[in-house]
């Protein structure tokens, strides 16, 4: 077969390309080490950072804008210039990997980051993979910033995020419900087989009764739902006659549930977890959702914070990375990515160059934990001041509720502060860890 020859050729070309690419990309790992040798004459410090995002997996709908936010942040701060406390320039070398929401691939990339590039910090993404890598990160002294706000990460020594955990966020939502309706009836709608959806449920079950909220149902709503599935779940939920529904899934399936509620003429309001609600929700759920749904958010939506200094930084970063508003589906997701980078930058700005070079990831962790009794980290009004204490990385406990009004516009309510009850503990105790 004559064609078969070409096939061999193609395979050979791929192999040669792989080998060539391998040799070419081996260099960036070096600078981090070479600078450490002559500490006296350091001009710039290269901080290697691994970025783990989902561009092609099941959460890519929100993951893409988050990834843009992270990249824009790294580019922006590299251009603007980050300096340690003693005035040494810091430059981020970073590697972006798409792990497609697959924890196993995340672990492969983690090994690459650690062994090939020797990263000091990782900016990561999902619940399952971050929880899985938390102990490794602690062992390898890599500061790990995630987009998952799982309660299990609060107690891990090297995991950070500039938001309250899912359980505290859900507790704030309970408080909001209690403030609107006395003795409200609540149905929980979430996928019983997904880590992210399950994460805040124990805290809700522990906290809601204290506020007089009665949980009357616990209904399975699949993450991969059709309208028929959503309608079925809604019918079952409606038999309990609730005033509120907690939707703990991602945006696609929560939008379908709200749509089904509109179709069935259900009364009652949806309160939706942070990854289930953003600026695109009104369009996805349609007119029937107006005045029927609210989302939880630890941050102010950029559209609602245009007067804050933080917003100006955010838009500057967007421009630095060459994005316009049109390129970004949800500014909230972009903001979430950017804030993770900003937190890392602020930690580095608190360090001396020698401490940073010597301690690497450990130094970053200690800089973050220096805020426990010292000055908190601030985000220009986009998020409240954040403090991290050793053994408990819960930066603050307040949350915004974003209400989708009858006019089809989003209105912020809050912030709502959870005090007097430890929602993190409630979740950790229930899962035995």
């Amino acid at each position: 077969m004559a064609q078969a020859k070409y096939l061999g050729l193609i395979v050979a070309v791929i192999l040669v390309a792989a080998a060539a690419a391998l040799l070419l990309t081996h260099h960036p790992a070096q600078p981090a080490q070479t600078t450490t040798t002559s500490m006296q004459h350091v001009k710039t410090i290269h901080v290697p950072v691994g970025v783990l995002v989902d561009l092609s997996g099941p959460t890519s709908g929100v993951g893409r804008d988050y990834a843009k936010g992270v990249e824009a942040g790294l580019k922006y701060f590299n251009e603007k210039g980050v300096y340690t406390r003693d005035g040494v320039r810091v430059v981020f070398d970073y590697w972006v990997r798409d792990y497609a929401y697959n924890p196993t691939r995340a672990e492969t990339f983690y090994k690459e980051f650690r062994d090939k590039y020797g990263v000091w910090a990782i900016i990561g993404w999902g619940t399952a993979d971050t929880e899985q890598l938390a102990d490794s990160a602690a062992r390898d002294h890599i500061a790990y910033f995630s987009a998952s706000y799982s309660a299990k990460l609060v107690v891990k020594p090297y995991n950070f995020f500039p938001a309250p955990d899912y359980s505290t966020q859900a507790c704030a939502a309970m408080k909001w419900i209690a403030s609107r309706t006395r003795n409200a009836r609540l149905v929980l709608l979430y996928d019983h087989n997904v880590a992210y959806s399950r994460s805040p449920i124990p805290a809700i079950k522990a906290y809601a009764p204290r506020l007089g909220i009665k949980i009357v149902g616990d209904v399975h709503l699949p993450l991969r739902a059709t309208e028929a599935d959503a309608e079925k779940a809604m019918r079952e939920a409606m038999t309990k006659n609730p005033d509120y529904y907690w939707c703990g899934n991602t945006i696609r399936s929560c939008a379908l549930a709200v749509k089904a509620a509109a179709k069935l003429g259900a009364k009652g309001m949806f309160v939706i977890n942070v990854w289930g609600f953003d600026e695109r929700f009104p369009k996805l759920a349609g007119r029937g959702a107006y005045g029927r749904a609210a989302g939880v958010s630890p941050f102010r939506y950029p559209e609602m914070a245009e007067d804050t200094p933080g917003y100006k930084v955010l838009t500057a970063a967007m421009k630095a990375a060459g994005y316009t508003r049109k390129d970004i589906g949800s500014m909230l997701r972009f903001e979430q990515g950017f804030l993770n980078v900003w937190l890392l930058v602020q930690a580095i700005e608190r360090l001396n160059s020698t401490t940073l070079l010597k301690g690497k990831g450990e130094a970053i962790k200690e800089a973050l934990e220096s805020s426990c009794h010292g000055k908190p980290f601030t985000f220009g009004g986009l998020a409240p001041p954040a403090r991290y204490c050793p053994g408990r990385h819960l930066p603050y406990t307040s949350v915004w509720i974003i209400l989708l009004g009858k006019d089809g516009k989003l209105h912020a309510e809050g912030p709502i502060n959870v005090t007097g009850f430890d929602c993190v503990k409630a979740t950790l105790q229930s899962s035995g860890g």
Partner: protein
Amino acid sequence: MPAGVFKEKYEELMGLLRYPIHWAALAAGTALLLALPLLIGPYYTSLAVTLAVFTVGAIGLNMLTGLAGQISLAQGALMGVGAYATVFIAAALHTNIIAAILPAAILTALVSTLLGLPSFRLKGYYLAMASIAAQMILEYIFSVIDPDQYTPVPVDMKTLGPISLAQTTTQYYIILGCAAIAALAAANIGRSAIGRAMKAVRDNDVAAEIIGIDVARVKALAFALAGFFAGLAGGLYALTVTGIDWTAFTLDTSIEYLAMVLVGGPGRIVWGSLLGAMLIRTGWSMLEASLSDTLTMMGLGILASASKYIVLGALVAAFLVLEPEGLIGILRRVKEYLRLWPYSY
């Protein structure tokens, strides 16, 4: 054939090591493999570990698909059965992982034989569909037993007597040893009476039955072997990770296993599987790293993610249409060409 070596006995002709060059290659290869972790550093060693794990799984599927002609899309899920079983058995009996691998592999072989039941009545594509159904059902079962998508593999389970197996280098030697034994066993099965019976079933099962081969038994055996190797791969995989989650054992994994076999060389159990795993798993990992960096810099990160699917898919289709013998076939032609050079035949 080089002049000077004459085989006088059947055993000599069928030996795995027939010529002096084989002995030399064996010695050099062993030395190289033993020294490898020192030469390539921890990251590439971890890639080699993954390669060995997936080669074992691919060998299993190659016996089923390449020898016995049964196409299966459940190898990924079976690997999952092996991995979960290993961790649960080790946790229940308070043993180390190595001790739990063998029972887990036997359990996986049983599950696999069960999945193979439809094949006694069905041929070809029907079996493929049964295996897709089995794959999806197993995925669901995993998601129920592992709802947090994370079953940790504690470090204190990763021991062998006084030796800790948490380090990539020690893992490398253990897994290399297991993979070598598995490969040797597979090679021997392939050239024994069972292997020949499997080939007869593949080529024409009705005819095979007429010449006295118990087709159902041979098929069941092929499934059991494929399951055993998948379970072994799953157990070894559990050794290499900090925790297992079911998203590692989805339909995509099964498709990639099939791709390894088809691209590497169906029927060439050991070398075909190794080449396929090398190209599809390791080669891709290495290419992906550099592709992502270049394309992300150009703002085309999504192209890097998509290229995996496009290139792998196109390779599978192209090999099936143009080169059914796989990479092995190409290599053999290259070898022939060089041997005869400068003559054309």
